[in-house]
């Protein structure tokens, strides 16, 4: 993953820079998760020094930021292939934006770690911590992010306008505009907590359940063309069908966050109906990947070839993405999306279970796949095969996250039945549920599975750093 990028186009070089930072932040996310998970079991661990709120804040922010880095990286990776232009129009500015963003992220993380919280003043919101889950980055950083994203977007947009206009790029250009614009909805302060959360969900939901999903659809389309030589006409038609279904269900599916925050009751019906449809496109995406894979494999064999796959690890991660997206976002989301269920499960470990499998299945997987494609380009490997490390990485990470999800789901059941249904959700009810032996057992398994995930990450890191060189030497 290092040093071998000199021959790459400037756009792809920049992509590799984004991937490098992304993988470091991924590691940070996992470490913070391990600390926070341990605090569930040993509450005195780092108490008063590095409290749960700090670990958890960095856990989820590192998650969002590494994904955004990997997403930007993926776009710079595919830009030359899709548009036929190797020098995006403002690549110099793009490089500068990368360093500015990385510097800003470093400062924000250092402030989170060492200053943590501020006094109840506007200045805290501006310079320390905005205190809104996922959007904790202080306001100065928000503005910085907007500027950097505008530069990135300008690069993509004008390169698109100048070059080939493929279906994948058309979807991407439209989707990125919505994605960037939505961030603005999270940049204001109000005393009204309901208003606050109304717009907060515009960012969070319309990112992860609409624009990010479409983004993943575009990445999968690009990935399939590259990895198994899928036919562009087929892939792009699927992509438009996915856009239709994802936006058709996801945009109004936003209503499932408006059941209990002070918003009117009609959101029950709207949220229930449209969010119940959200798994449909995820099934379609899964079918689509398997269908194309089978088709291309069959054709390759008919022509006497052995395998259609030109990048083993990338294909493996794209496949895990197809199924993980459906299972984590689709099935685990549907579990608790109806208001009749959600009135009990809202804000419980159920949500945490869904969050873990969905972010992993829908996003982490395919972004890791994109990193492998980047390495393939960097080392000019024609056919990249999975190494022992690639296999260990994908197995341990997937097994670990699935294990955490099952453990958290069991914890969620315990919590919902005892704290919510039986005792009525007060302070004591909360702790009665948290102290149940079966709940503690579930949290213990969560931590063990977290360690498994982390070991998998170490394999992944080693693999990303070595696979290119190894395979280039063999070729």
């Amino acid at each position, binding site marked *: 993953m290092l040093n071998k990028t000199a021959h790459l186009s400037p756009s792809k070089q920049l992509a590799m820079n984004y991937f490098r930072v992304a993988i470091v932040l991924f590691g940070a996310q996992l470490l913070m998760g391990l600390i926070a998970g341990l*605090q*569930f079991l040993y*509450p*005195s661990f780092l*108490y*008063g020094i590095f409290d*749960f*709120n700090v670990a*958890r804040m960095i856990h989820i922010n590192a998650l969002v930021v590494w994904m955004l880095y990997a997403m930007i990286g993926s776009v710079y990776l595919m830009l030359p292939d899709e548009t036929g232009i190797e020098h995006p129009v403002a690549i110099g500015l793009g490089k500068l934006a990368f360093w500015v963003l990385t510097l800003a992220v470093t400062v924000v993380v250092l402030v989170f770690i060492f200053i943590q*919280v501020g*006094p*109840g003043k*506007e200045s*805290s*919101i501006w310079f*320390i911590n*905005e*205190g809104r*889950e996922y959007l*904790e980055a202080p306001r100065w950083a928000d503005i910085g992010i907007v500027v950097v994203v505008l530069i990135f977007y300008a690069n993509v947009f004008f390169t698109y306008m100048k070059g080939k206009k493929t*279906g994948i790029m058309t979807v991407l250009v439209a989707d990125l505009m919505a994605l960037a614009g939505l961030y603005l909805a999270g940049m204001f302060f*109000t*005393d009204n*907590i*309901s*208003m*606050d*959360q*109304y717009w907060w969900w515009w960012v969070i939901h319309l990112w992860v359940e609409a624009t990010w999903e479409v983004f993943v659809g575009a990445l999968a389309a690009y990935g399939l063309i590259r990895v198994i030589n899928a036919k562009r006409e087929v892939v792009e*038609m699927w992509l*438009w069908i996915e856009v*239709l279904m994802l*936006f*058709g269900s996801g*945009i109004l599916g*936003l*209503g499932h966050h408006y*059941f*209990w*925050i*002070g918003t*009117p009751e009609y*959101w029950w019906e709207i949220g229930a109906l449209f969010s119940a449809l959200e798994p449909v496109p995820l099934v379609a995406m899964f079918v689509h990947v398997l269908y194309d894979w089978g088709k291309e494999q069959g054709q390759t064999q008919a022509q006497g070839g052995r395998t259609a796959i030109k990048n083993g690890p990338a294909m493996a991660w794209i496949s895990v993405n197809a199924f993980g997206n459906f299972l984590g976002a689709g099935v685990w989301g549907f579990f608790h999306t109806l208001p009749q269920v959600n*009135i*009990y499960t*809202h*804000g*419980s*470990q159920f*949500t*945490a279970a869904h969050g873990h499998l969905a972010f992993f299945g829908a996003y982490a997987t395919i972004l890791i796949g994109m990193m492998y494609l980047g390495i393939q380009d960097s080392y000019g490997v024609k056919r990249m095969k999975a190494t022992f490390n690639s296999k260990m990485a994908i197995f341990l990470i997937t097994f670990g996250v699935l294990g955490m999800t099952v453990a958290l789901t069991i914890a969620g059941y315990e919590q919902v039945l005892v704290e919510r249904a039986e*005792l*009525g*959700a*007060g*302070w*004591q009810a*909360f*702790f009665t549920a948290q*102290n149940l032996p079966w709940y503690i057992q579930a949290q213990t398994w969560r931590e063990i599975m977290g360690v498994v995930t982390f070991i998998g990450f170490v394999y992944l890191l080693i693999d990303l750093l070595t696979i290119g060189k190894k395979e280039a030497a063999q070729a």
Partner: protein
Amino acid sequence: MAEKKPSVWTSIRFWRRSAAWVTGFATILLIWLTFDTMGQIRMGTDEELAKGIKRRIPAPTVINYKIGYKYDEKRGLEAPVIGPEKQPLFGKELSPKEARALLHLGKLTVQAKNCMDCHTLLGNGAYYAPDLTKAWLDPMWEKTMPAMTGKKTKEEAMVAFLMHPERYPTHARMMPNLGITEQEAKGIVAFLKHMSSIDTNGFPRGFSKTIKEYETGGTYAK
């Protein structure tokens, strides 16, 4: 046979247009609903409160009133009951301006101290500590916490606890000292009391049962 037109179901143009139409329609519907919701979730005014006009999010001066949480037979869910009797916070009735200022300080503090990465507010946040949606009404503040902190009223007990949570542990998992000042703590109490008056369509369900059990000498009475 060569004349046969390909099916519309395999036409990229058809799906591209459909995607654009569906997305556009969903977006317009969302924007329209947002306008309606904005009207319904704006903060009420002091006059509305005084006249007993129900708002989903009452005015900041709701902190001058007694707040309850009762099962509403007609709606089939629990809803806040505001007033009509007064119960001023810290024994002093606040003007609309003072109440707004205190709530503002409270909301700022709740964000600056990052409450949401341990607790949930209206059910959103982290799951390490209790949900705060109806914290103001929690029976723990009636006798247990005032006795522990040596204070007479629940709001004073809340302020004492928020300033030094490490001194009043109730469980092994303790809230850390976040350097909250007395004034900030009062702001947080105002914020919590205001939040408990929001009509959350019955979330958290069963919370009124907890209150009732306390009042009738059940599980939570000590």
